């Protein structure tokens, strides 16, 4: 039996060094809501577990350059309870508010959700749509990575050995912008997205959409950024025709599988339905802000 080591480094660099210096499997523990389940099931047998909640920069939410930076160990509940953040990025909050239960949200983090690399992660499409940038620390120093480039496939990320996410940066919001995340699940809570759509759009003074990002979850091996879906909105007033085009583009981009959570046909259709509904919600937020 391999004995598991537990460390609580005080800096991100120290955490990276511990990760890099471990021969066997080393795992970062922030919320632990996925890691603990994998450990219990025997899917993951780490030699080292690093609790990063004691690293100051990983546990703070702060305004930076007019945008927001929040640490990788910040729990979903901490985000939800930060009123200013929640008002600025309601779509990100939509996602954070759907992770597990209250109990799970009290521990689970956006970074953990991202690095667990489930295609169905609820916070990821909203973060991608918001244009979030992950700050990664590793043996070669720090680098900034768009969130959509972190997941590689189910359970896999593009992070190198010794690398971990320190924080996320959400850029300053353009005026008249709105974002939203919607997912479909059979139950109202305590469920995994069968399809998830994160969408962010910006309007000009004449209500014409000038920018948009659309991300789909649970319809491919990882969350997708779908420029074709965004293109269906840009330059329009997000009217019926644009919404129909958006839905078609989202469905076209979906390449799901049949599994215990839903069928391929169902997911393809739902990608379009939810994209449309997310756009309507984001539009209302953009206008109402």
């Amino acid at each position: 039996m391999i004995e598991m080591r537990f460390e609580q480094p005080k800096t991100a660099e120290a955490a990276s060094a511990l990760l890099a210096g471990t021969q066997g499997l080393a795992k970062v523990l922030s919320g632990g809501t996925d890691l603990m389940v994998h450990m219990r099931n025997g899917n993951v047998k780490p030699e080292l577990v690093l609790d990063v909640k004691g690293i100051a920069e990983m546990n703070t939410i702060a305004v930076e350059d007019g945008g927001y930076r929040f640490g990788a160990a910040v729990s979903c509940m901490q985000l939800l309870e930060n009123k200013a953040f929640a008002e600025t990025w309601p779509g990100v909050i939509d996602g954070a508010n759907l992770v597990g239960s209250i109990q799970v949200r009290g521990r689970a983090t956006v970074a953990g959700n991202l690095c667990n690399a489930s295609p169905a992660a609820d916070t990821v499409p909203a973060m991608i749509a918001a244009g979030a940038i992950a700050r990664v620390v590793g043996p070669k120093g720090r680098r900034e990575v768009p969130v959509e480039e972190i997941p590689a496939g189910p359970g896999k990320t593009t992070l190198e050995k010794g690398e971990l996410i320190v924080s996320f940066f959400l850029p300053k919001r353009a005026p008249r912008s709105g974002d939203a995340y919607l997912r479909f699940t059979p139950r109202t809570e305590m469920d995994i997205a069968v399809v998830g759509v994160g969408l962010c759009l910006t309007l000009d003074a004449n209500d014409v959409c000038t920018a948009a990002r659309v991300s789909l979850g649970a319809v491919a091996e990882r969350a997708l950024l779908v420029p074709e879906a965004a293109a269906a909105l840009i330059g329009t007033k997000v009217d019926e025709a644009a919404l129909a085009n958006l839905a078609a583009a989202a469905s076209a981009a979906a390449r799901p599988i049949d599994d215990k959570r839903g069928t391929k046909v169902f997911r393809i259709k739902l990608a379009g339905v939810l994209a449309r509904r997310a756009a309507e919600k984001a539009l209302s937020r953009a206008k109402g802000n």
Partner: protein
Amino acid sequence: MLTNTKNTEHVFKSVGTSPVRPDGVPKVTGIAQYGADYSLPGMLWAKILRSPHAHARIRSINTAKAEALPGVKAVLTSADLPALPFDYVGPERVAVNYWHMTRNILAREKALYEGHAIAAVAATTAAIAAEALTLIEVDYEILPHVIDVDEAMHPDAPLLYEDMITRGIEPAPSKPSNISKRLEFKIGDIDAGFASADEVVELSFKTAPVHQGYIEPHSCLARYGADGQCELWSSSQGHFVVRAYTAKLLGMEIGNLVVHPAEIGGGFGGKTVVYVEPVAVALSRKTGHPVKIMMSREDVFKATGPTSGSSMTVKVGVKKDGTIVAADGLFKFQGGAFPGSPVMNAAMCAFAPYIIPNVRTVGFDVVSNRPKSAAYRAPGSPISAFAVESVLDVLAQKIGMDPLKMRLKNAVKAGSPTVWGPKHSHDGYAETIQALLDHPEYNKPLGKNQGRGVASGFWFNGGGESAASIHINEDGTVVLATGSMDVGGSRASMALMAAETLGVPYASVRSTVADTASIGYNHVTGGSRVTFATGLAVVEACNNIIEELRLRASIMWDVDVTGVVWEDGYAKPADISVGDFEPLSLKAIAAKRAVTGGPIVTEAAVNAGGQAPGFSTQFCDVEVDPETGAVKILRFVAAQDVGRAIHPKYCEGQIQGGVVQGIGWALNEEYIYDKQGRLANAGFLDYRIPVASDLPMIEAIMVEVPNPNHPFGVKGVGEANIVPPMAAVANAIQRATGKRLTELPMSPPRVLAAIDAG
């Protein structure tokens, strides 16, 4: 909400009130001890190795490396258990075959489903036991498997047993199959019946196996002594049955095994059988240490009973005026890896609510590579009712009749025929229908994408063996003990009936559940039998103790016992001629117990008969999202004839709980297998039981048509409520969307596919 339809004007002091239960404070403070909460000095932890394959021959099991791991005290395989003969014993519906049961406890020749127990390890820590499991080498020859019931019945299906010849077919088939049994019930002439019908509808249905979903995993602690005496702390629905099965499976004398009733964290039928108890006892016997086993949630889903999945075809014919003239039902049920689905119940209950002159029901019990099915709340009845009540809804629409009124027109009452023979002997069904017809919401219009569905259900309710004892304490307070596990407040209802009978306050009765050495045999807490049957034992014990109290009073007064009456908790002189005595309270009589003959004690036992069935009629309103197939339950109203509510809040709770289990069954719960025959959703994340935010308040209407065969009119309330919901929801979805769903669960992909099929 209580609807007194036929309630005579009894005035009760205790019965019909809803006091706090005796086990309440321990349960809200965390003190109550459930199966996993017991421990003993020197205790070992046991873990069970389970088959990763759906169907495999076990060529060999090598436990040497596991046994060599430091901290491991014993490894157990089926070789440690006695061989038991192949024989179906006991009543047909629940015939037990110990040859099968011992193979479900630990596999022998074959692993018959993923999760089938293969071996067990007892070690000083749970972690070491888990590590040791990985060191057990099992040589499997993987065999083709079959999961679905229709596929399992196919002549070319892989066989679980190479020698299983279907019972109930004459002449007996020459070839073995996966069909364990065929059964049939019939009255009248169904061909003539259908010929006389104005409308006939025939539909086929499938239902998924669903798990009882109790929140407490199976757990127990066993201590086997060098003297052969064994104690077992087990969470079950019947510690006497745990004792019987465990003793039989291990070749022990019943007298050497004492089973203590741990608090039970839900059962719903699933804890009427044993899984871990014989393993823990055998390991304790082997090691000389106490042994504790706690299943994981994954184990619970993979290796303990769901109820059967099914494939069914139901045909019903009606006259234009709504009179049902003929019905035919074919019910094919999965027993799991061993015979024993509740298909007989299904075939008996299917058309039970209706007066139908010509009926045939045929059932098949079929094995496949799934965990052995176990009882689940009104076992069998909800499955066949889904089919029957769906077909009735189609017919009601065809003839343009309100579905409740059509049911009322055909509703059975005392004297109506049954497909299994004897006539119904109780009313109560029509009253549940009428309660809904009178409901202010029933005729309210609904909005877009909304629909209202109705359905009914029948359950026999149970009687049987129970015992109760009463001790009058030195201060006149009362100790009441029964041997019936309390799954939902029965200690309170027993105390209420005792208080009522004795004429004393509820608070002076201490109500307990005694271990198997301290009270006579009690059958399981199942079949909605406890309030009725154990309640009868309690009332009889009270009557016995009243006789004793009268005697003691007569001794104190030095008069003949016939001169003493018992009234409102006091012994009183029968009339003035007896003498001018102050009434004697329990306290006063207890104070003189020594000089009047010693402790005041009695025990009563019954094999209770005269139980009355339960009927439930329900309506629900749903809204269907036409773009996603999501079904939202807007309103749910459930009427049930409870006979009499002893503790009305617990009766309501039974109805609400049963309905919500039914909603889960209707919408989302199912066993999902991958191509290798492995369960893909063995956890509460993907086996989706309803959560609080999925539901509206469930309105429970208790109809009281008292059972004349019980002193307080009890009928039993636990099960009939789960029979109608699946059809009620299906009928509501149909009325919202125009689409008839015939397969459970009616999950969003299925509903959407039906809508999109145009």
